[in-house]
């Protein structure tokens, strides 16, 4: 359980680490979180001067996956990562998008992050939230004429519920006590949701995704927020050949989303960045989670946990199973 104390503690540790790294010249930039401009937001902070480290903060609202800024980063960089974030970072190292020696990984034993959509639901319609306070496992929201105290645990992002590595699997420095991280989800429970979903009939499943994807406005925030989507030119943007039509009907949107899921299959570790970035609240987690499950079941591959393991769907071994193909 996260406590106010540990938040403050971690914040302090992060500031100390950042100051130290910057002062020693071990990094040129330190990427962490700072308070945002809206009550429920934090925002990525790019700190270059030791004096600015006091801007850094930590809490259940530190939702962004900062690894997304790392591909082809020039210079040496320190970056704050949660358990899920670092798995994307591992992929980026494996895929040579950043050199291991160029990045100082500052891990935080994660207590889970708040899902703003869930919180909005808990607050309900009505006057907007104008301020937020995080305390001992609770979040207090206030607006004109109301105040609500909501347990953080109930507001966590769905990805946090199935997280099996709340403590980063790889770090140079750990800003906090491993023991204080949120308990890991037992492996056998991690895919309960997708298993339930997979049990539904195919029409239902299709209808679910059709409903989700229909809302897409092709702003590509999901892609841009995704640390694994670093292609210089995305397949949807290709003009020759044009994979995705301009009619922007459901099938075109499907091609994009399903294509993206496939491109991240065996790499995606469910950090939830895409879902959070989406202004339409599209949730494709079930699909990407299924990919994660398949990678594990078929190939024994757990995305982003092994610096030596290449993305499983991009490599071929003779002994790979193929009986599921047909």
């Amino acid at each position, binding site marked *: 359980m996260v406590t106010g104390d540990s938040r403050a503690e971690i914040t302090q540790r992060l500031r100390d680490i950042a100051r130290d790294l910057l002062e020693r010249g071990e990094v040129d930039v330190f990427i962490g979180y700072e308070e945002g*401009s*809206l009550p429920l937001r934090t*925002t990525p902070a790019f700190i270059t001067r030791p004096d600015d480290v006091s801007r850094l903060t930590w809490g259940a609202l530190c939702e962004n996956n900062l690894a997304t800024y790392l591909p082809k980063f020039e210079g040496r960089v320190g970056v704050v990562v949660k358990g899920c974030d670092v798995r994307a970072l591992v992929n980026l190292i494996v895929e040579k998008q950043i050199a291991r020696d160029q990045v100082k990984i500052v891990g935080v034993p994660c207590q889970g992050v708040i899902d703003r959509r869930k919180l909005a639901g808990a607050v309900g319609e009505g006057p907007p939230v104008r301020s937020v306070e995080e305390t001992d496992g609770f979040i207090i929201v206030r607006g004109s004429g109301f105040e609500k105290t909501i347990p953080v645990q109930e507001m966590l992002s769905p990805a946090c519920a199935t997280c099996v590595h709340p403590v980063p699997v790889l770090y140079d420095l750990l800003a906090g006590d491993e023991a204080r991280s949120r308990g890991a989800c037992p492996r056998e429970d991690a895919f309960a949701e997708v298993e339930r979903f997979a049990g539904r009939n195919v029409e239902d499943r299709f209808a679910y995704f059709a409903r989700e994807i229909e809302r897409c406005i092709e*702003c590509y925030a999901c892609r*841009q927020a995704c640390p694994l989507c670093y292609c210089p*030119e995305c397949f949807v943007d290709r003009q020759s050949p044009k994979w995705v039509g301009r009619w922007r009907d459901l099938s075109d949107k499907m091609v994009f989303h399903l294509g993206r899921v496939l491109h991240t299959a065996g790499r995606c570790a469910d950090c939830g960045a895409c879902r959070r970035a989406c202004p339409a609240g599209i949730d494709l987690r079930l699909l990407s989670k299924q990919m994660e499950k398949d990678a594990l079941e078929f190939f024994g591959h757990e995305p982003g946990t092994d610096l030596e393991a290449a993305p499983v769907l991009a490599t071929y071994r003779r002994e790979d199973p193929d009986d599921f193909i047909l």
Partner: protein
Amino acid sequence: MGERGSGKALVMAKRDLGAFARHLAASYLVLAPIVEGGVTRFAVAGVDDIGGFGDRESVPAPSKRPLKEVFFPQEEVLLAFDAGGKVEVAAGAAAPADEVTRVAFGVRPCDARSLTLLDLVFDAADYKDPYYVGRRQGTAVVTFACTEPGVACFCTSVGGGPSDEAGSDLMLVEAGESYLVKPLSARGEGLLRGFDAVREAGDVELAAARDAEARAVGRVARDVPVDAAVEKLAGAFGDAVWEDLYRKCLGCAVCTYLCPTCHCFDIGDEATRAGGERVRNWDSCMFPLFTLHASGHNPRPSRKERFRQRIMHKFNYFVENNGRVACVGCGRCVENCPVNLDVRRVLETIAAL
């Protein structure tokens, strides 16, 4: 649009909003903010949707998707052609309309204001966009003054306000148990024709409305130094500040697609064996492809240039060409940016240069 209304303020009981909705629905296609899968957008609405509008305790500030798509949809077919070489304007594409057939209902003042900016582009003196202009001429705008602006709102900083009348044909202002009904154009008056449940507003209602407006203005939290920023931007193109400002930008199009005034688009052909269609879609200056030449040269090669373009276009180039900033302070870009890159902070930073 069109001639100004008589300006005589009327009033209707809040409970009569349903009746008004039925009245409108009888003669017009009514488009109102509808929640679909958690996203609010202007879509064809039923009487209950419209009538229930006023029942909400307080309507959260603007619909997630902007009003512009009622006039300038995200995708639309401009032309159809067949293999034989016949080309025609796509069926259903709006031609200039002589009469009002649609009502955009439940519009927020910022969105209504955005139309006056889009008009400058699509209804320009040299070339008129018949699709936009046709829809605009055929659509009346019924606005609700804001009483509870959102935390991201900054309309007052860009010349608007919770009861800004620009772009509206009819405005409803909460006044206790009633709505003050302000016809702002002949078209707005036309909407009331045949609707009996209105009477002339009394002083009490007018005063109540004024109070509500003042309260709302007070609640628009931020005073953004837009004018100062506009002034500074004239010389800021080459400033090093962009280096810091753009950094966390992800390069997505949330800000531009949800912006009620952004209007960049793309035109492309979709072919079938029998012919095809020429299609227009929203596009975004945030995308690298927006300016990429066929040769591979890109005048705005990185996120930095593209981010700068967005800010410069809204607060400098547009101002130079039209005398107005291309922003209505609706706060959508602030609210929905995945990394909380807040345009208000950007303007503040620039103003402080």
